[in-house]
């Protein structure tokens, strides 16, 4: 029908609708049936919110993205306390919400969603008076979404539609063959673009800040990296962390385990970002970045026994409080467990030296190769105004198998100590055989087995290391990456076996070790006493054994009359709230106080420094 022709009778054709039934949907009785499997509104309609209060971690990302400021994070006490989550939950003001669904798309734990409910009207009550008129109406529409609409789900976001960048930026890493025949650092670190891309993923929710023992302001320095301002980011890091190079490589990253992005994808690589920030700034630049701290000249002098991470961090913080600090270190160089406990492929020399050199440049005097004995301790006690003991756990525990100290059974720490010496060619060679057995399941055990693998590759050209641990795969204390990377480097791992006794060959040197099945590692109230069952046995041939089953503290240098006054609890010193040992002028920090990892060492160093400062003013 040509639509340009004028015709008088054409409009009457529309009277045919008198006979057809109308298209009206009589709403309260009928409902819309356009969608295949659902009646009424569409299957992915953006209606009123629902929120799973258990799954939600109160990270506040929805509050940041809301274009109308409708979402407020409010503290609730009927919410269950959970590790790595705040008690805040989103409260939505429907007098502001524009139903855009951005909060659902950006939700880090996909606990927030939008239902297909749309009806919500509010008749103003007749008795609404003057000052409550506006308030009553808008207060009715402020609702904390919970699960009552979740049965009628509408707009939900799964991982491929989420607005968060869930995949980590892949960091350059040497492939197994390359890395296993040298002690070079296995991880190449971020380039500038990669770091910015990785920093871009952080939603600045602040959960990591509460989880970190030293409460580093992580969102701040990641934002600085994103704004390509490395100076600002290093300034932010040094506010709370004196050893960023070390932490940047070997920290047990409690922050990443609690990162909100980790719930749906991979958490932000906070440790590698810290490492990138500190690596890309030369040592000389540190001066003008951090020097602006006030130096109060208290004139007091503090002695720190033990130059490990805890000692160094206490020295760093005390130097800013204007104390004269001297550190007594029994080894040739400061660094403690960081230097001699952790192999070079995870923490290279220059990184550690950079941190220590900066602390030295703050005026801290480090006396190396000075082993403290009882009367030295007496002299120091009189000479200095305060003493901080941070000697750490450096005596290796040993199973009582090697009856008379056979020469091929070695403790973990001395072995790693010799490896570190050999690498900085202080000593000519490390005693290694072609078939080595490592006992233990912690990070230290894996360090030993991977170091052995490298040495064997260098010496014999082939790797033959077996590692035996008591624990089963799910409760093994080492990190996940350690287990994967060591498997790639040729270390065979056997779970759930306890050592029984060494087998000697006729000439008296070691031929193998006899193992028995370990039923359970911890007893009912979680204390460590393994139970074995004799009749299940396993024989492994090896010509050398390294025991990496834990370390013990060495308090021999403390004179008897002080040691009696201190309280010990399972090898650790018990301290009061400002970290003093009960004896006037003596404080303690590091592994001997709390926690196996380095970041706890730094935390205890900081608190010890505060304790000292409080003592004097």
């Amino acid at each position, binding site marked *: 029908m040509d639509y340009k022709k004028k015709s008088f009778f054409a409009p009457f054709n529309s009277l045919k609708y008198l006979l057809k039934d109308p298209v009206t949907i009589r709403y309260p009785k009928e409902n819309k049936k356009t969608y295949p499997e659902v009646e009424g509104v569409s299957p992915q309609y953006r209606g009123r919110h629902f929120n799973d209060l258990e799954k939600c971690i109160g990270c506040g990302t929805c509050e940041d993205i809301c274009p109308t400021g409708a979402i407020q994070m409010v503290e609730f006490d009927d919410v269950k306390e959970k590790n790595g989550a705040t008690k805040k939950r989103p409260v939505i003001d429907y007098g502001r*919400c524009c139903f855009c669904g951005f909060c659902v798309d950006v939700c880090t734990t996909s606990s927030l969603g939008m239902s297909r409910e749309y009806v919500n009207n509010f*008749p103003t009550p007749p008795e609404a008076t003057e000052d409550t008129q506006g308030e009553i109406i808008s207060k009715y529409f402020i609702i904390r979404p919970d699960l009552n609409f979740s049965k009628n789900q509408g707009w939900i976001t799964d991982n491929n539609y989420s607005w968060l960048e869930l995949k980590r930026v892949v960091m350059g890493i040497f492939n197994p063959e390359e890395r296993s025949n040298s002690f070079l650092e296995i991880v190449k670190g971020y380039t500038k673009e990669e770091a910015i891309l990785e920093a871009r993923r952080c939603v600045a929710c602040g959960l990591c800040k509460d989880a970190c023992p030293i409460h580093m302001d992580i969102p701040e320095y990641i934002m600085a990296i994103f704004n390509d301002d490395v100076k600002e980011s290093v300034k932010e890091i040094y506010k709370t962390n004196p050893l960023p190079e070390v932490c940047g490589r070997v920290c047990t990253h409690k922050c990443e385990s609690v990162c909100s992005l980790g719930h749906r994808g991979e958490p932000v690589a906070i440790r590698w970002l810290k490492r990138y920030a500190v690596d890309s700034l030369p040592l000389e630049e540190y001066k003008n970045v951090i020097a602006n701290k006030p130096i109060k000249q208290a004139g007091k002098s503090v002695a720190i026994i033990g130059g490990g991470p805890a000692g160094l961090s206490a020295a760093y913080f005390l130097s800013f409080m204007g104390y004269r600090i001297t550190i007594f270190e029994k080894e040739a160089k400061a660094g403690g467990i960081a230097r001699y406990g952790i192999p070079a492929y995870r923490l290279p020399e220059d990184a550690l030296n950079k941190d220590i050199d900066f602390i030295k440049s703050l005026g801290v005097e480090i006396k190396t190769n000075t082993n403290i004995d009882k009367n030295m301790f007496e002299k120091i006690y009189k000479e200095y105004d305060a003493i901080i003991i941070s000697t750490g756990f450096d005596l290796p525990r040993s199973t009582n198998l090697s009856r008379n100290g056979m020469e091929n059974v070695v403790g973990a720490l001395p072995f790693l100590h010799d490896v570190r010496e050999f690498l900085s060619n202080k000593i000519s060679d490390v005693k290694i055989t072609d078939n080595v057995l490592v006992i233990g399941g912690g990070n230290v055990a894996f360090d030993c087995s991977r170091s052995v693998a490298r040495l064997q590759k260098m010496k014999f050209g082939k790797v033959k290391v077996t590692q035996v641990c008591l624990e089963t795969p799910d409760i093994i204390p080492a990190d996940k990456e350690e287990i994967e990377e060591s498997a790639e480097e040729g270390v065979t791992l056997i779970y759930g076996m306890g050592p029984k006794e060494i087998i000697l060959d006729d000439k008296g040197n070691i031929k193998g070790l006899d193992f028995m099945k370990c039923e359970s590692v911890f007893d009912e109230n979680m204390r460590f006493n393994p139970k074995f069952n004799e009749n299940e046995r396993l024989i492994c041939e090896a010509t050398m054994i390294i025991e990496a089953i834990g370390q013990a503290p060495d308090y021999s240098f403390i004179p008897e009359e002080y040691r009696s006054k201190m309280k010990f609890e399972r090898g650790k010193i018990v301290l009061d709230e400002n970290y003093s040992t009960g004896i006037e002028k003596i404080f303690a920090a590091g592994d001997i106080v709390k926690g196996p990892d380095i970041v706890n060492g730094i935390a205890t160093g900081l608190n010890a420094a505060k304790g000292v400062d409080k003592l004097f003013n």
Partner: protein
Amino acid sequence: MELYSTKKLKDEGFEQILNFFRKKSLWMLHYCTGCGAVELPPTMTSRWDMERFGMGPMATPRQADLLLITGYLSLKSLKRVIYTYEQMQNPKWVIALGSCPINGGIYYDSYSVINRLALYIPVDLSIEGCMPRPEAIIEGFIKLMKQIENGEAVGYKKYQENYKWYKQNQDSVLKREFPVLSGEEK
């Protein structure tokens, strides 16, 4: 400031019977004040057909008895809405559509959109939604009819009782001699 009288404002007796007829034939004023007006034509026309409830658009405020504030209200149109509201005859009702009249909606930080309609004219029913859909509007109308029937839709009586308070709010927004930010508070 005891501007607000606490007289009992509920409808009783004969008015209750008239309310039965008033509820069945609500005439809506054909004035689209904001963006919510895009959802009114579908409600009026044949897909959702609000004429089944006896409601139809009326051209002038004199004839209408239901004023729909559809969405945000800028200052200039607030002045026209107040004129329109005062031209309408009692009993008259106001429905606030969408989230903007409730607490500012997406324009909460705009310099020309009011945040709370209830300060300037009495609101009988607020319907939530960033543009409520026709079904939500019809649910709102049914709720208003129930409200009129049991005599609680008394916005217009509240306006008469507390005229000074409303006039003071309106003047504080419309008649300003002094700049808001730099000048001193009038």
